[in-house]
């Protein structure tokens, strides 16, 4: 309940932005010493804005990300898989909650972040605009999407902003469960009937390139990266993280008995890394622009859930207000 949940968000004290020289020097010193910035510390406005943008986008992704997997909860093919999938989607809701709380420490309320998401002015990870037509997509999302999320997020555990770094430590533990579960779904399918194997391969074919693009545009075209690296919000470049991910996938795909759909994929002895093929950045941009298969569907779903729940939230507020009034009345009586 936005109105009743204690969020622990402290009000932002305007004196605490790093506008004065002394405050700004202190901020720089903490960053230089690899220390942690905490909510009440002075920080440049742009640092605060960058973090709110990144953290709310991250939280939004967790919440929108519940939809493609929620799509299979009622149809999971065994009770064990149903339980694992429900627990996973529940974890993602929990991640959204931690991240909204962590972002609130920067002075933006969850209600504001929710409104921005619903209005379409705040982003969420574009990966969730792809559909989940088959059960194997539950495996491919776990293996590739949660896998890419881990590679992205492990360095964030050392992010300069304390609340974000701490949220990431907790979240990364759960994400690695998710990745193993996804791997296991694919392994079972790959070793199952011919039709199951084909279903697994088809899902990997569809999710491989989009998961590589989760790391963002190539370093040469990335607008936010340099400043975020200087602030130690980001520790590695998009291309470095993508390379780390590809190097991790290749042996795992072999273990799965599945093929990664990339003709450019080969070991490069000189670099000590796998080379990989060109990614279709035009498609990435098209999905970002709203031309993916599910962009409109995902937002409409979220808006509808929010609107359908409005009367419930109103009831909880009204009830809380009535209870508070009763408590006040009782105190007056006992004081009299």
């Amino acid at each position: 309940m936005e109105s009743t949940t204690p969020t622990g968000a402290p009000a932002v004290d305007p004196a605490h932005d790093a506008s004065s020289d002394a405050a700004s020097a202190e901020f720089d010193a903490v960053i230089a010493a690899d220390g942690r910035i905490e909510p009440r510390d002075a920080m440049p406005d742009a640092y605060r804005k960058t973090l709110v943008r990144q953290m709310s986008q991250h939280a939004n992704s967790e919440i929108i990300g519940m939809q493609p997997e929620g799509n299979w909860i009622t149809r999971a093919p065994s009770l064990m898989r149903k339980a694992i999938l429900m627990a996973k989607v529940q974890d993602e809701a929990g991640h959204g909650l931690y991240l909204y709380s962590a972002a609130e420490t920067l002075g933006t309320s969850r209600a504001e972040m929710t409104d921005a998401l619903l209005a379409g002015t705040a982003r969420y990870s574009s990966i969730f605009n792809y559909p989940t037509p088959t059960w194997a997509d539950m495996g491919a999302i776990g293996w590739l999407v949660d896998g890419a999320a881990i590679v992205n997020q492990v360095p964030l555990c050392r992010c300069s902003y304390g609340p974000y770094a701490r949220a990431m430590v907790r979240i990364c533990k759960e994400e690695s469960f998710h990745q193993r579960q996804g791997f296991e779904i694919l392994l079972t399918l790959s070793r199952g009937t011919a039709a199951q194997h084909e279903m697994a391969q088809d899902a990997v074919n569809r999710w491989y390139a989009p998961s590589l693009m989760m790391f963002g545009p190539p370093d040469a075209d990335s607008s936010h990266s340099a400043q975020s690296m200087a602030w130690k919000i980001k520790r590695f470049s998009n291309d470095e993280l993508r390379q780390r991910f590809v190097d991790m996938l290749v042996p795992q795909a072999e273990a799965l008995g599945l093929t990664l759909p990339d003709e450019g994929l080969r070991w490069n002895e000189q670099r000590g890394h796998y080379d990989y093929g060109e990614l279709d950045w035009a498609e990435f941009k098209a999905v970002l622009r709203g031309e993916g298969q599910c962009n409109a569907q995902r937002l409409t779903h979220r808006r509808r859930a929010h609107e359908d729940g409005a009367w419930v939230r109103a009831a909880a507020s009204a009830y809380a207000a009535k209870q508070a009034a009763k408590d006040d009345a009782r105190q007056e009586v006992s004081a009299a």
Partner: protein
Amino acid sequence: MTEQAVTQQAANGPATGTTSSPSSAVDRRDIAEYALRLGDDALVLAQRMGEWVSHAPELEEDVALTNIGLDLLGQARALLGYAGSLTGRTEDELAYFRSDLEFRCAHLMCLPRGDFAATIGRMLVVAAYQWELYERLSESADETLAGIAKKAVKEVAYHLEHARMWTLRLGDGTDESHRRIQVAIDDLWPLVDELFRTDDLEQRLATAGIAVDSSALRGPFDAVIDPILAEATLTRPDVPAAAGGGRHGRPSEHLGHLLAEMQVLARQFPGASW
């Protein structure tokens, strides 16, 4: 259930309770049938809770409803696993390859999820019923049933508290929420009576100290529910009880639709493992 526990249970197969040795005078098929009734209630309701995921009125409630769904699914797996161990079937064979005529759940569990008020109203009634049931079943002479009930009673105590709090908020919240929760209670009330009907099979097992006599639970149930309805400023409906029949192969019309969705993939690939 933790991920580890889920996987562990899967590896071990259903909870078979090897130490359990019901008295030889008791027909194992009776126990299997009884476990199916309770297990099907939990499974169908878990499926309804699963329908809520990503649709809840707020994120905290998405987490809570999924939690309750997971508890119910865990109960269902334990109970179906036990029923299956007595009749040579797996939990998944029972869940995915029986028709609606072979399910044994009460009609109340099958009602469509409806709005949030309908979900809370049903949760209140079911949790109050299951709490009384599992509290007593945890003393069962059948060790497996007793073990399942001991775990379940703690879980449904939380479900009941969650439903109670929301019933108060909705009943004594706004005019709109009051109207909706009253409609929800009115709509489900004809199906409440079925939960408290007993039959020969249950009586045979109750006599052996294995099952709980459902008809004995109505008084304690009313004693829990009536004060909650009163505090929530809701009226207890006075309506005829529906005929029911869910425990005896006369399923709710809604069940076939629920199973069509739940079973579709498993039935598309019979014999496959997942």
